[in-house]
């Protein structure tokens, strides 16, 4: 895999959840996920199937048709990680996935991430967190 020769292949094999939680407030959770899937050139069917999978995994399936601006901070973070997972990346980059969240939500997100590692063995999780 060579980034400079074929950035497309590299980009397709990594998932990235940024620190700022770049979720579009004015779109619903499902629309955010759908767009992300489209940007990774997945077919409609794939998005429907995997979208349901990741949203159920992160406990967001019931709220999928609500606007993202009605979500809580933890839900937004989960939605963002769900978006990063929709194309089944080989490597997942999480930049401070629990930044600014309360203790319960933080534990919940780490539980999800652990579950993710067990269920998708191909997925490798890299964490960047400084404990103080």
């Amino acid at each position, binding site marked *: 895999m060579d980034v400079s020769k074929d*950035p*497309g292949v590299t*980009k*397709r094999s*990594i998932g*990235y959840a*940024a*620190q*700022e*939680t*770049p979720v*579009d407030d*004015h*779109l619903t959770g499902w*629309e955010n996920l759908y*767009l*992300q899937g*489209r*940007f*990774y*050139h997945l077919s409609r069917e794939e998005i429907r199937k995997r979208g349901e999978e990741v949203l159920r995994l992160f406990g967001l399936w019931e709220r999928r048709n609500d606007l993202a601006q009605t979500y809580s901070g933890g839900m937004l973070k989960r939605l963002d990680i769900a*978006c990063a997972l929709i194309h089944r990346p080989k490597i997942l980059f999480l930049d401070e996935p629990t930044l600014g969240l309360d203790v319960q939500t933080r534990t919940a997100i780490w539980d999800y991430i652990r579950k993710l590692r067990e269920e998708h063995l191909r997925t490798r999780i890299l964490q960047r967190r400084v404990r103080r």
Partner: protein
Amino acid sequence: MILSDVAYVAWREVVKFFRAKTRPLVTVIQPLIWLGLMGNMMQGLTQSPFIEKLLGTGSYLAFMTPGIIVMTVLSGGVFAGMSIVWDRRIGYLEKLLAAPISRAAIPLGKMVAAAVQGRILGPSHPPYRRRFGRAVRHRNSWGDLRPLCGHGL
């Protein structure tokens, strides 16, 4: 592939634009206020033969309307530019750059979205035609302006 990338970047903008409700409303109502109040207020100017010669028409509305239309379309373009800056601010642009979409598709998609908005809300909006159509047809500005508005950007 680049076409679908452009389409989905544009889709996002258009969905957001029409969901916001206030923005389409303002883009429709503001020009109506300009034309209805300003246009009629300045009408008195054309009584002076010098001004009439300067404007090239006896109707101030006819003089003003093309400018208002272009302004409406243009402000759509400004919003498209601003949305890229905003995306950068909230980190969405970074997310787009990390995705395997063509980079050109990002600005192109925004332009397409602005053109769609300008086309729908600019000249072809029915209230303008009915209310101001006659004054404008008098100078036949519509015919000249239509292609310009279509390619708002």
